[in-house]
C-alpha cells in the first residue's frame, strides 16, 4: 500500500472515530437530551476518540518510515555475503547506491554486476513486505486506539480536560521545535568555529587587520598564505551600518513625529500603508537599485566634484540600506509616540506649551526608551543585511573609513566563503562559521539590550 493511501485511510478512520465517539457519548448519557449529564460537550468525546485513533497510528507510520531504509539495507547487505560486509563504510555506501539505483529504475538490472541485480531484487521484495506490514500495523493501532477510547466513554469521563492536555502538549512541542532548532544552529556554528580556531588563533581572527582567505593549494605557491584578520570586515560592517542609521534614524523619526502629531487623518491613511510597502520590497530589489542606480549616480556626482568614487562604494550600499530601514524605524517610533497617553499632551497644552514644545519636551522624552529600543533593533537588521551589500559595496576587504571606497562586510564574506565548491574542513569555509558566530553574538546582544530598554519603557505608565 502506498503511504499516501495509508494516510488517507487513517484520515477516514479518524473522521469515523470522531462521529462514533460523539454518538457514543450521547448514547451513554441517554439520548440527545442527556448531554447535560456529560462532563464535557459531546464534541470533546468525539475529538478524544479521533485523537487516540490517529495519533498512535501516525507515530507508527512515521517511525516505520524512519527505520525502514536502514533495516532493509542491513538485510540486503547481510544477504550479499561476507565480501560486502567487510567493505569500508565509504565503499559500502557506493555499492548500496548502485543497488538503490537499480531499485529506483534508473539503471537497467542487466547493466550491473549480477550480485547487485540479485540484491536489488531482494530489496524490492523486502520493501513491498515492509510497506504492507506498516499499513497493517498502523491500521490495527488506529482501530485499537479508537476502540479502546470508545469503550471507555462514560458520562463522568473528563474528555475536555484530556483533549486540552493533549493540545497543550502539542503546543509545547511546537514551541520546543523553535527553541531546539535555535540551540542546534548555535551549537553547530559554535562547533565549526572551534574547528576554525584550531587553525587560526582567536586573537589573530579578532585583532588581525588582513583579510584574504585564499589558501595555498601547493606548498610553494606565492601570495596565498591566507590571512584571517576580521577587523576590516567588522570595520566595513560598522561603516555601512553607520551610514544606514544616519539616514534611517532622522528620516524615520521625523516622519514618525509628523505622522503621529501633525499629519491629517487622510494623509496618515495614505502614507502609513505606503511606508509599509517600502518595508515589503525584497532586499535583492534594493540591491540592484543600489548597484545600478545609486552607485553610478554617486560616481557621476563625485566626478563633477572632483572626488574619487569607487563604482562599488560603502556610501551607495549604506544609503540604500538606510532607505530600506526607514519604515522599520518610523513604524516603531510611531507606535511609541502614539502610546504616550493623551493626558501627557493635555497636561502640557494646559500649561500653555506649544505643540512643538510639547513634542520636544514631553512626548519625545516619554517615548525615547521605546524609540531607542526600536533603533537598536534596526541596527541589528542593518548589521545582518546581506543582499544590498553584496551587490553594492563590493568584495575587497579594505580597512578604511572613507565611505567612497569599496568595503566588504561580515555577511558578504560569509556568502563568498561558502558559495561554490568547498571542502568543509578547510579554514576558508570554517572561517564563515566563526564570522557567523560573532555576528550572531553581536545581534543577540543588541536585541537583548533593545528588549530590556523597551520593557523598561512599558512599565512606566502602569
Amino acid at each position, binding site marked *: 500500500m502506498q503511504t499516501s493511501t495509508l494516510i488517507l485511510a487513517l484520515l477516514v478512520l479518524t473522521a469515523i472515530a470522531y462521529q462514533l465517539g460523539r454518538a457514543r457519548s450521547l448514547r451513554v448519557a441517554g439520548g440527545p437530551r442527556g448531554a447535560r449529564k456529560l462532563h464535557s460537550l459531546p464534541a470533546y468525546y468525539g475529538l478524544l476518540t479521533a485523537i487516540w485513533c490517529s495519533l498512535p497510528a501516525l507515530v507508527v507510520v512515521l517511525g516505520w518510515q524512519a527505520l525502514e531504509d536502514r533495516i532493509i539495507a542491513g538485510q540486503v547487505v547481510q544477504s550479499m555475503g561476507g565480501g560486502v560486509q567487510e567493505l569500508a563504510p565509504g565503499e559500502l555506501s557506493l555499492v548500496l547506491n548502485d543497488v538503490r539505483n537499480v531499485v529506483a529504475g534508473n539503471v537497467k538490472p542487466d547493466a550491473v554486476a549480477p550480485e547487485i541485480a540479485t540484491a536489488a531484487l531482494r530489496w524490492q521484495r523486502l520493501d513491498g513486505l515492509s510497506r504492507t506490514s506498516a499499513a497493517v500495523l498502523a491500521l490495527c493501532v488506529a482501530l485499537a486506539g479508537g476502540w479502546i477510547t470508545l469503550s471507555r466513554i462514560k458520562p463522568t469521563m473528563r474528555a475536555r480536560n484530556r483533549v486540552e492536555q493533549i493540545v497543550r502538549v502539542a503546543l509545547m512541542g511546537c514551541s520546543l521545535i523553535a527553541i531546539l532548532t535555535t540551540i542546534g544552529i548555535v551549537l553547530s556554528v559554535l562547533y565549526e568555529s572551534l574547528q576554525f580556531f584550531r587553525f587560526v588563533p582567536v586573537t589573530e581572527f579578532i585583532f588581525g587587520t588582513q583579510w584574504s582567505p585564499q589558501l595555498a593549494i601547493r606548498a610553494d605557491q606565492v601570495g596565498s598564505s591566507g590571512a584571517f584578520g576580521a577587523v576590516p570586515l567588522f570595520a566595513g560592517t560598522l561603516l555601512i551600518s553607520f551610514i544606514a542609521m544616519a539616514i534611517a534614524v532622522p528620516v524615520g523619526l521625523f516622519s514618525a513625529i509628523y505622522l503621529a502629531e501633525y499629519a491629517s487623518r487622510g494623509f496618515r491613511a495614505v502614507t502609513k500603508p505606503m511606508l509599509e510597502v517600502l518595508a515589503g520590497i525584497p532586499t535583492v530589489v534594493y540591491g540592484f537599485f543600489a548597484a545600478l542606480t545609486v552607485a553610478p549616480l554617486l560616481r557621476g556626482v563625485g566626478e563633477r566634484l572632483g572626488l574619487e568614487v569607487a563604482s562599488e562604494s560603502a556610501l551607495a550600499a549604506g544609503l540604500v540600506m538606510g532607505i530600506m530601514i526607514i519604515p522599520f524605524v518610523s513604524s516603531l517610533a510611531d507606535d511609541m509616540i502614539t502610546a504616550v497617553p493623551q493626558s501627557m499632551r493635555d*497636561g502640557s497644552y494646559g500649561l500653555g506649551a506649544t505643540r512643538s514644545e510639547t513634542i520636544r519636551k514631553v512626548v519625545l522624552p516619554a517615548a525615547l526608551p521605546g524609540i531607542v529600543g526600536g533603533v537598536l533593533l534596526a541596527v541589528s537588521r542593518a548589521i545582518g543585511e546581506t543582499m544590498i551589500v553584496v551587490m553594492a559595496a563590493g568584495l575587497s576587504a579594505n580597512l578604511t573609513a572613507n565611505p567612497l571606497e569599496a568595503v566588504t562586510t561580515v555577511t558578504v564574506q560569509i556568502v563568498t566563503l561558502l558559495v561554490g565548491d568547498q571542502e568543509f574542513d578547510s579554514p576558508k569555509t570554517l572561517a564563515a562559521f566563526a564570522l557567523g558566530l560573532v555576528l550572531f553574538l553581536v545581534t543577540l546582544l543588541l536585541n537583548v539590550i533593545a528588549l530590556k530598554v523597551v520593557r523598561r519603557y512599558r512599565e512606566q505608565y502602569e
Partner: protein
Amino acid sequence: MAVESKTQSRSAALETATAAAGGSEPTARRTVGDVSVPNPVMTCRQVNVHYGDKHAIRDVSLDVAHNEVIAMIGPSGCGKSTLLRCLNRLNDTIPTAVVTGTITLDGQDIYERRQDVVQLRARVGMVFQKPNPFPKSVYENVAYGPRIHGLAADRTELDEIVQTSLQRAGLWEEVKDRLDQPGTALSGGQQQRLCIARTIAVGPEVILMDEPCSALDPIATARIEDLIDELRQNYAICIVTHSMQQAARVSQRTAYFHLGDLIEVGSTDMIFTNPKHRLTEGYITGRFG
C-alpha cells in the same frame, strides 16, 4: 455679529425665565437663576459644542467671577468636562470637536482668530481629573511651565518659583528632599497636588479643575479643598465635582448641568437649600429624574 444679536435676545429670554422661576414650574432648556455676575473674568454666551454628530453642550451661558469658586455639578456625561475644556480651548486638540458661541476672558473673545492659544492657556490653567505628572523629576514638573514661558531669569528665580508653588500646593514639606525623583513615583494624592503646583507655577488668572479629588482619599481631599479656598484669594476657580459635599464646602456659586443643558445657576447656599428647578432638586436630593 450674528452671534451677538442672538446673545441679546437670549438674555432677554433668560430674564423672563428668571422672572417666571418663582411662579410656575420652569421649563427645561431655560437656565434658572442669574448666569451673569457684576465682575466677570470669563463669560460664556450661547456656547454649543458638537463632537461630530453629538451635541454635547447646548446654548450654555455662564459667567465666572473674580475671586470666586464656581462648582459645576451634574450627572455623568452631561458636558461638564466639555465646557471646562472650552474655557482654555483644550477642545482644539480633539479633531471632531466644534465650538460655537462666544467665550471671553477679560472682555476678549478667546475664540477670535487673533487669540494666541498658547497665551490663553497660560492665563487659564487646568488640573485634570486623573493626575498626569510628566515622567520627569518633581522639580522639572513644576519648572516646566515657567521655563517655556520664560518666567524666570536665572536658576535661583526658578528655584524660588518651584518652591513657592509647591508650598502653596501643600506639597513642599513632603517632597523638598526628593525634588530630583520622578513625579510619577509620588502617591496619587501627591501627584494631584504636584499637578496643581505645576499649574499655579505659571501664574494663571483662572484655574479649571476637573474632578481634582476623584482619585484621592479624604485627607488629601481636605488638603486640596483648603488649597482651593486659599487660591481663591488670587484666582477664579471652576471646579467640576461629583461630590455635593465638596461643592457645598468649597464653592460660592454652583451650576447644575443636565444632558448638555445648564439647568440652574445660583449661590451655592441657595442651590443646596432651595433649588428652583425640579431636576436640580432631584439631583441634589439623590432621587434623580
